[in-house]
């Protein structure tokens, strides 16, 4: 693959988080975030958010994305079985040729999410733009969704939480998982992991609209082979991997 000129990458990163200002009439400005939705308009199915992870650029031992996720979402960063983890680094090894790959694994934001199918209360839901979330106001902490998820993406909060971020409410007794940093996406930014990966010059993650053929993620998916993890389950995940 052709290496991307770093100045161009920076430019793209800057443009990705930018707010475009449209002049409607002289003196009248419309501030529209990059997702093209006014702040008082609901999300629609026109957009489907997706994440492409190029495992050939993801270094073993690097956990910049995990650290950024923990910081943004106020997770402790602990890895005990009872500590919530939204991203886990997974190391793969093909024994015979000895090929190794490292990748971040998180909620795959399925188009057909099993966690939503099994949830008895309707707390686990898919937003119109494809982001799978838990409405913690409704969640009773039964953990059916954790059982149903083939990616082991969800965690129950076992202990009282303090010092939450105002944008990321979290509390004991509810289930949570990667939200694609929905609070950032709604502001027109990319998820914290993607930003951290780009800032550290790994460039292993591309976030964007799968429905927009002109987006970088859609162009890359059209041009190069990619993998859906557990494609046999036909869940149509929004997270895709290259190089595995």
């Amino acid at each position: 693959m052709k290496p991307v000129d770093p100045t161009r990458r920076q430019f793209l990163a800057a443009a990705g988080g930018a707010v475009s200002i449209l002049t409607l009439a002289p003196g009248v400005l419309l501030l529209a975030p990059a997702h093209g939705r006014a702040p008082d308009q609901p999300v629609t199915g026109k957009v489907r958010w997706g994440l492409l992870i190029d495992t050939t650029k993801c270094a073993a031992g690097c956990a910049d994305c995990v650290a950024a996720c923990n910081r943004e979402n106020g997770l402790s960063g602990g890895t005990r079985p009872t500590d919530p983890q939204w991203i886990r680094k997974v190391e793969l090894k093909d024994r015979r040729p000895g090929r190794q790959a490292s990748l971040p694994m998180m909620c795959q934001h399925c188009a057909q999410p099993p966690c939503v199918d099994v949830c008895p209360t309707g707390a686990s839901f898919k937003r119109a733009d494809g982001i799978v979330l838990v409405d913690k106001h409704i969640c009773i902490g039964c953990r059916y969704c954790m059982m149903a998820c083939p990616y082991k993406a969800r965690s129950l909060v076992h202990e009282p939480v303090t010092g939450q971020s105002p944008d990321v409410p979290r509390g004991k007794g509810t289930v949570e998982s990667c939200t694609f940093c929905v609070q950032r996406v709604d502001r027109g930014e990319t998820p914290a992991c993607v930003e951290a990966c780009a800032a550290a010059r790994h460039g292993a993650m591309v976030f964007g609209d799968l429905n927009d053929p002109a987006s970088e993620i859609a162009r890359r998916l059209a041009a190069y082979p990619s993998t859906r993890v557990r494609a046999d389950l036909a869940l149509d995940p929004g997270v895709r991997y290259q190089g595995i």
Partner: protein
Amino acid sequence: MAGRAVFAGLIFATALGAGWALAQERTAAAGRVPKPALAQAKGDKCVDPTDFMRRNHMQVLLHHRDRTMHEGIRTPQHSLKGCVECHAGPQSGTVVGGSDDFCQSCHAYAAVSIDCFECHAARPRQARAGARKP
């Protein structure tokens, strides 16, 4: 007809009298009845009239929470984050925790438990110790 008018007048007078008595009682008891001590909010005025908010803030917040959660609408009007930003105590920096803090003082007065801040931040972002700038 005349009887009815007299009757109505009587009721009116009674109501007036009762109202007056009530007002007297209030003034008399003002010193004894504990009132919630509300810290001054940051902005000049609330997003809605105070009388309306006193009675309806829970419905307003409930409605906005569903719009935010499910539709991604994060407008500042009626957002809990907005309430906290404005009403966090000038000293304590929070809306719950101390008896003077905005949400807590009133909820303690009305004996209504408040669960929002089990999960939601009770402090605005800037006031959080060691918080990074957004």
